[in-house]
């Protein structure tokens, strides 16, 4: 099941980034793409064992903790990127008065 979900999210993210006209939707698509890879890592980690990796006596068959740690970092970086992208979009809106990438590129062409 999770395999299909990951593939669908992957294609959805790339499609959204390429095809959507609105800049904010593009950023949301980027987030979908990133979370697809996060899920991929977590899914990989979950397949190695079944219990939480708290190493006490008698606990065996633990989940690989490394993918989760890596993904925490990746999520934090993703949040930074989203915040920066949204603040840039705000500035773009103030300058060009539209969020459509087509209209922005047309405006630039007209100026030249």
């Amino acid at each position: 099941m999770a395999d299909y979900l990951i593939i669908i999210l992957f294609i959805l993210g790339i499609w959204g980034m390429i095809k959507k006209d609105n800049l904010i939707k593009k950023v949301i698509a980027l987030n979908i793409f990133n979370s697809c890879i996060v899920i991929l890592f977590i899914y990989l980690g979950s397949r190695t064992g079944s219990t939480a990796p708290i190493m006490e006596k008698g606990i065996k068959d633990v989940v690989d903790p490394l993918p989760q740690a890596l993904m925490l970092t990746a999520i934090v970086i993703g949040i930074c990127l989203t915040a920066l992208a949204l603040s840039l979009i705000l500035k773009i809106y103030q300058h060009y008065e539209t969020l459509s990438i087509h209209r922005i590129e047309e405006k630039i062409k007209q100026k030249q």
Partner: protein
Amino acid sequence: MNNLVIFLILIPLVASSFSLLNRYFPRLRIAEAASFGALILCLIFLGLLFQPLLKQKVINYPVGGWQEPLGINLYMDGLAWGSSLMGMTIALLALIFAWGEKKYRYNFYFFFLILIAGMEGVILTGDLFNMFVFFEILSIASYILIAYSRERKSILASFNYLLISSLGMGFFLLAIFLLYQQTGILSLREIAYLQLQTKGNLPVFNLAIISLIVGIGVKAAFIPLHTWLPDAHAFAPHPVSAILSGVMIKVSFLSIWRILRLFQAIKTQQIFLWIGAITAFMAVIWAIAQDDSKKLLAYHSISQMGFIIASFGVATSLSLAASFYHLLNHSLFKSLLFLSIGCVICSMEERDIQKLSGLGRKMPFVFLAFMVGALSICGIPPFNGYVSKNLISLSLKEHPLAYYLIFLASIGTVASFTKLSQIFRKDRAKRKNQGKEEASASRLHQKKLSRGMLIPLGILSILCILTGILPHLWTAAISKLITGEELRLIPVVYSLSSLTNSVFILGLGFALYLGIRSSLGQRILKYIRGLKLGLNNSLFLLVGGFLFLIFLGWIMEKGL
């Protein structure tokens, strides 16, 4: 002594937090002092590391004392040492320029230092995920620096770069996933060692390498991943464009270099010969068409990266030395060109080539520095570009098609720099068209350049000449630094045939320049200038390039 390696990353990071103090003590100029101090300290540490490096070949520093498969290791080899020296020198000179320009606040220095820390991290780290984190630090700092002037074009360029590069970094994470799934470790050396031992599951391994190349390649800017670069480099502040063009794209390319050499992916390396040759040729066509002076230089960065990448793809010891030599030279003369054009734009407040003329008499020093840079990039003796371009064409001798593409790119370089140098010449035809009004207006506009802006130009010009004379010594030293072995046969660069070759290139370049000044040439250039990819198409090109590389890898694996 080995502990010095971590300080190369730590010093800029600590200094960057110091520079924030400037907010509370605005008169003290802490930010400038902290950044200069940090860079000079880093350069001293690099000097101290040189002797141990010669003895040990590789300096290895386990972070926190955790050894290889579990912990993160920092590796300092000859390649890393050379590229850090290059990065630190260019960063210091760009910083002097920024200080001379006197319009940046403390937050500029803060992000500048973070950029340098990220760059050092990418160079030194031996761990894949750590490399991802440092790449993101590097690129977040660069997005902010590109948008620093808050003009409409620079903000849009920064946003485009952010979106394209983040998609690329997604592919990088995918590659980390594939490698971790196969091997269960993240250390680059251990993965390469395991893979070469077991030869397990080659298709997945190749897919991982291609994803890594696409992820990093967005920053190294070869075709078809180059679309963000011209806008971003052209509309950034001048010192930032110098460091982006001079250092950042090279650092990214060097990490591709390191990965491919470690994994011994010879077949993938051969693809780079063609990518490089096509990049060099295509980018130069767009460079000639540009009217914006900084955009012309930005397209030339892509084109020169093509030279470097093509030479890397040949994968002989001579071609690797030539590639690294050209990489160092390009970082010197491209930052020199960006800074000198920056001086012109600062004082005239105009960046269109067609509207500027006769500046050679008004600012002779800038003119001289620009000429050193332009002659270097065109490959005229005795400047450094001549030597490394000749070495590259020597190493490409066995691949005639790539050789001719590179040859055509050299001709285009001469033509476009003849075009750019017309801002310094007196142009009679232009005078007549413009009339006297604008000439007097431009005189009013002219601001005086401070000494801080001119010092880096002088230093860079001297370095350009120094690396051009005595090519034997430099080639031998570079080859020893990057491969660890002596070159058996160092080719003679200043020979009669290569000199006639460069005279030939020069003549054809001038002919091409005269061709583009005709009315037909102007019309063709206008058409080419109009062919610009939008954001959607560039993102599509990234995904398309990824799929195409996978297809190419599949074909090569089948041996068709």
